[in-house]
């Protein structure tokens, strides 16, 4: 259910960020709905298969999408399957997609793909522990050890949940390949992380990647929505709108961090995660 909603919303989400960024820099900008037409166009196009490639080149975009959709299926914004420990499966399904995306980037045999691949690896190594600890902290406060039993922000659990929300926000920027970590609009080899990996994919393969990219951000937004009080689908929409505004602002007025400064930035993610888990264990 959640996955279907997210699939419908994802192109609108990335389209609106692009539109708002254009407006903030005094440009006209394409309609936010353009992204749907763009995906349809990409799906119909001829795609190019580099002559060095293997089936892994195709599996990259396929499993990047399937992994993200799988993670979204487990996210109970709208009712869906739930069981003990589903949050771990959701995070690791994202990991499965990332694994194949990194491999597919290496498959073309160029230095760009490989660069994107190892940078993605470094971002993962930096961001994963904090993210997991933040979610685990929230899960420990809730009941049932599952995403469907997550607690909502209130007075008594405010510290843990606020820390978890902060950690997830930083994770969204890192995992969604957004501004201080990665510049999604650039094609400069010094800075790109996500773009470098998808550079050799075209046509329908690129469409799958683009969809998977926006879906991944919606996954993190959905996780944050679960921690906020209110009617979940509405809260989810609210969080998404907030993220559109925040991302457009950040990417218009912010700069990309130097690659070597990433550990400093993402150490906050880890710190918040550790504190959230500590808070949950000691019941602050």
């Amino acid at each position, binding site marked *: 259910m959640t996955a279907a909603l997210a699939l419908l919303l994802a192109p609108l989400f990335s389209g609106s960020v692009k539109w708002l960024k254009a407006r903030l820099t005094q440009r006209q900008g394409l309609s936010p709905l353009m992204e749907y037409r763009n995906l349809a166009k990409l*799906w119909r196009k*001829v*795609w*190019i*298969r*580099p*002559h*060095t490639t*293997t089936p*892994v080149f*195709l*599996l990259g975009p*396929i*499993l990047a*999408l*399937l*992994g993200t959709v799988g993670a979204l299926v487990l996210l109970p914004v709208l009712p869906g399957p739930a*069981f003990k*420990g589903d949050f*771990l499966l959701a995070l*690791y*399904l994202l*990991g*499965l997609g*990332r*694994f194949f995306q990194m*491999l597919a980037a*290496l*498959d*073309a*045999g*160029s*230095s760009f793909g*490989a660069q994107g691949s*190892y*940078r993605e*690896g*470094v971002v*993962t*190594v*930096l*961001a*994963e*522990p904090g*993210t*997991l*600890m933040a979610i*685990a902290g929230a*899960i*420990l406060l809730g009941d049932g050890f599952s995403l469907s039993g997550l607690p909502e922000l209130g007075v008594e659990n405010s510290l843990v949940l606020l820390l978890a929300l902060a950690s997830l926000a930083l994770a969204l920027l890192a995992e969604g390949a957004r501004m201080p970590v990665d510049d999604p609009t650039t094609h400069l080899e010094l800075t790109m992380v996500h773009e470098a990996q998808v*550079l*050799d994919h075209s*046509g*329908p393969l690129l469409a*799958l990647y683009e969809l998977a990219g926006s879906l991944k951000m919606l996954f993190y937004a959905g996780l944050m929505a679960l921690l906020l009080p209110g009617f979940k689908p509405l809260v989810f929409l609210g969080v998404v709108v907030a993220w559109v505004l925040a991302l457009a602002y950040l990417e218009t007025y912010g700069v990309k961090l130097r690659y070597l400064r990433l550990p400093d930035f993402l150490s906050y993610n*880890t710190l918040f995660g*550790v504190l959230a*888990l500590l808070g*949950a*264990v000691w019941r602050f």
Partner: protein
Amino acid sequence: MSPLWTFLPLGLAVVSAGTPWRFRGLSLSVGLAGLAWVALGGMGWASGWGAPYLYLLLLGALTLGLAPYLPAYLALHPREAHLYALLIPLFLASMAGVALTSPGFGFLFLWEGMALLGYFLIALEGPNALAGARAFFLASRLSGAGLYLAFLGHAHLGADWVWAGLLLGFGVKAALFPFHTWLPQAHPVAISPVSALLSGAMTKLGLLGLYQSQHWFGPPPPWVGWVLLLLGLSGAVYALVRGLGEEDLKGALAYSSVENLGLMLSALGAYFLKPIPLLLGAFFLHQVAHALFKGLLFLGAGTLAERRISHLGGLFRKAPELGALALWGMVAGAGLPPGPVFLAEWQLYQGLLQGPFLVPLAAGALALVGALALYFYVRLFGLAFLGLPRGEVEVYRSQGMHLGLGVLAGLLLLLALAPGLVLEPLGVRTYPNWVLLTLLGVLAGAFYRGLLRRPMRVYGTWDCGFHPLTPRMQPNGLGFAEPALRLFPFLRLQVGERPHLEEPLAEVYPGMGHLYARLAALVQTLQSGSLHLYLLLQLLTLVVVLGVVLL
């Protein structure tokens, strides 16, 4: 019914080593022994006879994969083949024997015999294997010393001393953190089937011993759990980071073994601190899964003539069947969802999060291990199997080798579909993994066919419009890992003309060797050959003995 009858085929194997049809005889009898162990172990584990039977099942499954593989592989090593054909069945028998005996002199005898056979199997590889074999030998001495302390002293010493001995004795075998360095030194130099056995099966005996010790010597004091948990997790992180810079394919796989064993040790440690069945499920399921996927990957590495990662590349197109099998092994090894290693980690996470005091924080370390493992296996598979070939690499193909790899991959798939085979007797349940696996497989297949039907053009990789791409433009093994290695300051990395990664813990075993030699030299001064000194020593001994007796 005594389980000893399962050893009969191995006797046949040993006998057949001297006959002209030794390879066929070896394959057949080792396969029979594997089947017997799988049957007996499966039956014993399902009816609750205890952990040794699970170990028998694991060893049998690994042996089943080894049986068709061995003759084809040994045909490539004709000079030592008859010795291997003699030693490998004995080694298998000694491992199964260690698992089945109860503690006592028989156990110690088999344990030392297993260590000695392992040493021979490594040292057979020739002068290149000398350092590795020596490290293995010293490690087994250390392990033996710990076990003597525990087994001979448990009537006189307190539980603390006994468990310290057990930690040393079994922990060194299971590559407990600061003593793990023998493993990446010894395993890569042995021939591939032996590496698969050492890494897949022998190290598990240390884990089995630690688990069984609580039944033999009583429950461990709490510090044992903490030590296992902390050292296990630090070892896992350390091994992955160090392994990221490893150039040798089998060396990298050996570091990955240290990581996996670290996770199993931490599962056991957390179980000692708070007995949650989930942790036991993680402990046992991970062992079986690790034996299968590491066996698959080590045997797969054995089909390559070149093992330096920076000289491989593009193997998938050259040998697609090997590539597909290796991909499945590495997806499983990286701990990704449909694989059985993920199921084990999934239980470990939940067990740790329910643990006492600060144990839940260990989940963060586990997440770091997961992310590093992802990076680690992307590097191994991506640089070796994908991209442009960096050199001419010969791939040995034979039906027997492929059959062996296929058996292990199939068993791994079976474990992913039905983890209940291992978990049922423990009373642990997981989410329905077979649904996930089937759905992912069907959907990915549908998408794959759909994409291939879309109009497509085969073209060169985009090269920025400059000179055409060359294989040298791809990152090499150290280049791919460098950004991650910089994050971990305990490794010193030198880049430049001769890139080099230092192993800060490399001195553990040579240092121990020096210490042992110094001690021997000290004792040697007593053996001066002078009759006067010997008489003086005798007199002193008499005085001391009389003094002790009279006072």
